[in-house]
């Protein structure tokens, strides 16, 4: 009497070939997933190119990673653009929007008095806030030289008189290195 062949669970060695999804009891489902004569419903992601792709994305994102984070820009400020620019630095941000002056988002005076007087003048509120910031920096960093850098975020329609007044006030408060925040334009050759 011929021996009964071993079932697939008992055979230790199998013929090489695809195993996955071959034992689905419902025939129409099996056909569907295996794709006999039709387009297979299963797809395999080629892992090695996929990993290469992910590594490329990671490298690109790491290269463009900025530890300082996004710079806060006031919604009402429309900045001008320039070609010969430098990268941003971390420094107190003085924003001039409409008639308001803000230092790191905190109100620091008004430009109306300057416009009405039509002459260069010191803005006392701004001066005091910047001076306090400088003194705080010196307390936190004893023995270090104060960089004296402030960034002005000025709307493109603001008159030069206001810009010069803020510029001079910042200089008197101990911030002689002023940077104007601008958009970056591509260089035209």
């Amino acid at each position: 009497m011929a021996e009964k062949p071993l079932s697939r669970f008992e055979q230790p060695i199998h013929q090489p070939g695809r195993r996955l999804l071959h034992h689905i009891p419902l025939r129409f489902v099996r056909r569907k997933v295996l794709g006999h004569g039709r387009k297979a419903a299963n797809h395999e992601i080629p892992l090695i190119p996929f990993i290469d792709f992910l590594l490329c994305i990671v490298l690109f994102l790491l290269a463009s990673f900025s530890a300082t984070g996004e710079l806060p820009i006031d919604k009402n400020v429309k900045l001008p653009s320039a070609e010969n620019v430098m990268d941003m630095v971390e420094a107190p941000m003085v924003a001039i929007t409409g008639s308001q002056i803000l230092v790191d988002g905190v109100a620091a005076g008004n430009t109306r008095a300057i416009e009405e007087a039509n002459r260069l003048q010191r803005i006392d509120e701004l001066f005091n806030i910047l001076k306090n910031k400088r003194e705080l920096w010196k307390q936190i960093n004893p023995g270090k030289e104060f960089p004296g850098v402030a960034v002005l975020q000025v709307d493109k329609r603001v008159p030069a008189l206001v810009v010069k007044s803020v510029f001079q006030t910042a200089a008197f408060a101990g911030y002689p290195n002023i940077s104007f925040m601008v958009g970056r334009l591509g260089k035209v050759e």
Partner: protein
Amino acid sequence: MAGIDAGGGGGGKRPVDHNIPLIPFIDFLLCLVAFLLVTAVWSQMARINADARVPGPPKDEPPEEQKKEKQLHVEMRGERKFQLVWKEGNTVVNTIDVDRKPVPIGEKGDITFPDLAKKINEEWTANGSHRAGSDKKFDQSVLHTDNSTQFSDVIAVIDAIYTPQRDFSFGGKTEKVPAFNVTFAVN
């Protein structure tokens, strides 16, 4: 699974082959991509410098006697032209007129002054004093503007002043920086 087959490891020794578990590795990469995408900064903000030229803190040593250097004064008060004036102290050395021709650039209504930029570049090439990479000083430019001039025009002129670039060595590295330092005239 991706693996490294280094051979050996037989005879009861610890195997030296290693497999990278691909699925956790892909998960890790995806997490990294997600984190970097969330923290990515896409803004194109930059800065343009200006120097207030105020005296520094008092020092014990007597100040060095400074020789008068040539300064480029850029006069932008005229409606039709700019005036470039080279001055040594209060002495006017040379005056050049440049037509005021704004050229729109970009879609946000920004302007540039390419003629002014070209002329300033030529002037610095001919008269600039600080060119060497090791020179820590910069040529000085003073901007004279009308009180009612819009800030966008001021930036366009400062941008033109920064057109000439020179080498600057700092901390063993040499990079291109604007040849001029810009400050505002008070009056």
